[in-house]
């Protein structure tokens, strides 16, 4: 269970999140929507512990542990996964090598043995196949020369291999054509299970047609200003932020 209480986050001296509260129970899928500049990406980076995202007030706890005291890799070891809006290119490091190193790092953190090379190969090939990734792409350097859709697919393959208990997906659907969007949705739906939680941050309602959330929140000016069921996303689609009485400087 993820509990965020009265979270204030400052970036470059400017306060972006201004008292955000959010609780996600095991098995739940939440969606956060909001206008540009509301603080959506700031929330995902603060959750994952990126440098420069300073928590000035409030708390983030995951399964009873204080996440804020942890390095990004420790948070990953605790089961957190961030799907990047803009996945980073890593020249010279193959997808395979990258994922093996990541998976074994997490296993070491949890006091587990490293995965045997043969088992890893089986695992990664199976997950790539489930998400229609060409096995040749596993040998290529991470995200280098990948199209926007291929990068997002790669995020989903990483997520499937690392098998997190809490996935935070930061606009994973942005800039995707319908085929790529379906792949991403498949990746998210495959993760969905009673002991896992998912937080989708998105601009558009269309991803929610494929991954139906339990809760929809609207984030504006650094706070959650409205919470509802999946119908809230449809209402927002129809009326817009203005129609719901939300302006960018609101709250």
């Amino acid at each position, binding site marked *: 269970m993820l509990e965020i209480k009265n979270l204030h986050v400052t970036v470059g001296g400017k306060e972006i999140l201004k008292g955000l509260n959010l609780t996600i129970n095991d098995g739940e899928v939440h969606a956060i929507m909001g206008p540009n500049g509301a603080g959506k990406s700031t929330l995902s980076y603060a959750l994952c512990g990126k440098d420069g995202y300073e928590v000035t007030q409030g708390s983030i706890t995951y399964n009873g542990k204080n996440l804020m005291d942890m390095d990004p*890799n420790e948070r990953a070891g605790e089961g957190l996964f961030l799907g990047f809006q803009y996945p*980073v290119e*890593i020249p*010279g*490091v193959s997808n395979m090598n*990258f994922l093996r190193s*990541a998976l074994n790092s997490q296993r070491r953190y949890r006091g587990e043995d490293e995965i045997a090379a043969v088992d890893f190969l089986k695992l990664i090939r199976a997950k790539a196949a489930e998400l229609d990734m060409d096995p040749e792409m596993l040998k290529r350097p991470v995200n280098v020369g990948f199209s926007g859709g291929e990068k997002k697919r790669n995020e989903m393959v990483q997520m499937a291999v690392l098998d997190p208990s809490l996935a935070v997906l930061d606009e994973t659907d942005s800039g995707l054509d319908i085929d790529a969007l379906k792949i991403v949705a498949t990746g998210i739906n495959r993760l969905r299970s009673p002991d896992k939680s998912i937080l989708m941050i998105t601009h558009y309602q269309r991803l929610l047609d494929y991954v139906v959330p339990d809760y929809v929140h609207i984030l504006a000016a650094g706070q959650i200003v409205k919470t509802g069921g999946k119908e809230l996303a449809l209402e927002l689609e129809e009326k817009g932020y203005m129609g719901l009485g939300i302006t960018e400087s609101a709250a």
Partner: protein
Amino acid sequence: MTQKRYFDTPQIAAGFEAVRQSLPGVESDGFDGLRGDAMSKYLDSGLPGPKVEEWKYTNLNFLANENFDIATVSPQETEIKELFEKARVKGLSGPLLVFVNGHYYKPLSTSVDQKGIKLSLLSDNIQSFRDGMAVSDGDSSLNNLNRALVTDGYHLEIAPNVEMKQPMQVIHMATSGTDMTAMRHRVQIMAGTGAKAEIIESYIGADQERYWTHGVTDVMLEQGADVTIYQFQTQGRQAIHMTELHSHVADKARFSHISLQLGAEINRTELINSFTGENADIELRGAYLGRNKQSQDIFTRINHDQPNCQSNQLYRGVLDAGGKSAFQGKVIVARDAQKTNADQSNKNLLLSRKAEANAKPELLIYADDVKCSHGTTVGELDPDQLFYLRSRGMDEVTAKGLLVEAFVAEVFDGIADENLRTAFKEKTARWLAHEVTP
């Protein structure tokens, strides 16, 4: 003394006279005379000081006061065996040639039994060595010092159209007990027309000793010959490592030098290359890594005196806290060397604000129809890449290691032999993981 561009080292002259009678070849007039002449030349010029442009980044002033005696073998078999196992590239079955403290070490060496390949030692065959030394054109003061005091080395001849079946591994090691001693070797490699050979050269030594390894190599490639030297410089942490290589590359010949420099406190590696024919290739690639008072100084020169030749240089430097490096790469394209193609790339990664990387590319082009390029960068790890890796669970050391390995991988990726390629990458990884002897 510090005002002089070159400085005197009178203790070296005295040391030379003291050991002269015990040096190999003393009974052969010609060789002893050659040593004497070289010593006079050395003493005339002295050692280069920091005001000599080429030596700006390696200060040899300490040699004016410190006295390095000639090293003698102290056969501690277990230590020799241990260093040998660390240095040897596994999985290769070619001939082995081991030098311990500057002298040939027979118990771990094997002979070359392939028709058309002749290997002789300086200590065994003064005649062939003296002939080889006569064609050696290096005339720097350090080269002359080496000529005067050299104790051993080898002379390798590959007959025309003979291809060495397996790479030959040469290991130069310094054991404990070598503190304040110098070991000087000389190597001559003569590749006949169409001959092909690969040589793996490894340097290793005891971490607690301040020893001075000083080697000079001359490589002569006849028409269409193909020679590659792979070098692992994993010297002890207090070592002084100086090597000077001269290559002469004839028509359609190809010379490659691929190195990993991660040992020694002071490393000065010089690669001086000349084309003597057309349509020939020279490729120099290397990675140098330094931290904690280490200084890696790589000096290359390519003399494009002939038209239609290609040279390619690719160097990557990684410097951590207290490490310092210099890459000085000079390419000289003579007026008649039309259709020259010369590329040079040098990138450096600083892992700490307390690290220093110097880069000095120099292109002197006197021909007008050439393609020459050079690129130099000094940068830090990309924080976005680092965060991406860490968000996937890698701790900072693992994430940085992966990025640095990727940065230097370009140097070694093209090596066809998997054992060799793996050895380069593993030694790099062990250095990054702060292992004592990579």
